[in-house]
């Protein structure tokens, strides 16, 4: 089995509440997910708490993994990233949780062909981000890795909120076009 298939198999067994599979999955992916939590939160104690939340979500939602069409590492990393960002933002009043990846999706998911296209598109992302006007690339990275909202980004780049929104949206369109070129 490939890595991807092995991790998918582990998630499928976790969906059946197989404890041994859960521990094996933890052993395989915890270092990557902890790296992501640390990158976002920048504090070990907070990252450790985020890991606990992340793995409880994985245990409780593994049965919904198959329906969402994501690759297994994308699903796992996205849960860790979103959990860490929710913790980062939790201090702010009126915070709404960011999306919970694949917990809500009812998508039949991309076909294997679509997934292959998506993954080859994805490998272009880094180059495409670098091709964007510097500010726009930095804004997309800031939103994804530092959990910055439009208001945070507008403050950082010292532009009005609507301008920030337009910038970022243009950046996303350019990114999509670059990646599908």
């Amino acid at each position, binding site marked *: 089995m490939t890595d991807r298939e092995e991790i998918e198999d582990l998630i499928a067994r976790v969906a059946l509440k197989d404890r041994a599979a859960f521990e094996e999955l933890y052993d395989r992916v915890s270092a990557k997910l902890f790296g992501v939590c640390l990158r976002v939160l920048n504090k070990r104690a907070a990252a450790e708490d985020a890991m606990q939340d992340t793995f409880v979500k994985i245990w409780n939602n593994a049965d919904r993994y198959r329906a969402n069409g994501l690759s297994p590492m*994308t699903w796992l990393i996205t849960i860790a990233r979103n959990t860490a960002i929710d913790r980062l933002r939790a201090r702010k009043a009126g915070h709404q949780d960011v999306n919970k990846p694949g917990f809500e999706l009812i*998508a039949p998911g991309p076909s294997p062909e679509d997934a292959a296209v998506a993954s080859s598109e994805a490998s272009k992302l880094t180059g495409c981000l670098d091709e964007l006007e510097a500010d726009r690339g930095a804004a997309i990275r800031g939103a994804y890795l530092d959990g910055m909202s439009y208001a945070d980004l507008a403050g950082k780049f010292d532009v009005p909120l609507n301008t920030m929104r337009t910038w970022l949206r243009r950046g*996303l369109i350019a990114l999509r076009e670059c990646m599908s070129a």
Partner: protein
Amino acid sequence: MSDETLPPRDEDDLQAAEYALGVAEDSALDAARDRTRFDAAFAQRVAGWQERFVVMAEGIDPVTPPKKVKRAILSALFPKMRVPLMQRLWVWQGIALAAMALAAYLAAPLLQPAPDTVPRDVYATYMAGDVDDLELIAVVDTTGDIALRRVSGQAPEGRVLQLWAVLPDTAPISLGVLPSDETTRVRLPQALQAQIGVMTLAVSDEPPGGAPGAAPTGAIRAAGAINEL
């Protein structure tokens, strides 16, 4: 400064991207979250953006978390309840009293073992899922019989419920189709009895007569890991 008007396809795709990126806020966030539940095409766009964005995490180096993190997760998910039997039964909140009476009835012989028998542990599990309200309680008695009680829910119209034993590194093993009665007993094969401590029971819905092959074909509607009482 307002946005230029975008074709609907672009507008949808940008809303999906903003949602996946986490910059959608307030009503836009709520609207996007609702759409991922009911609009498959939109959910697929969100998944596509998540696949693209995740590449930004690829450059992040793995860091081995301290051992205490795994311990904390395992003890949060699988609390070891080293308390007397009757107290432990109370920990099972949400289990119908009738089901508790059944467990106590089955455990009773253990409390007064016949002089020449060594009492064995009693194992039990509470099975639930999030497909519907199906809930079952299973108690494995000292002879290897599984006593099952359906506490709520039932098989969907035209389907039957089938019980499976799930063991580490093994495909699910069918323990048979469950009759529509509220309570039933199922024999746990001798070969599986030694592995009871690491077993999970699961119930799937299947066509009448049960899954045609050796594996479940329908949804897993309830599952629970077996615990020592």
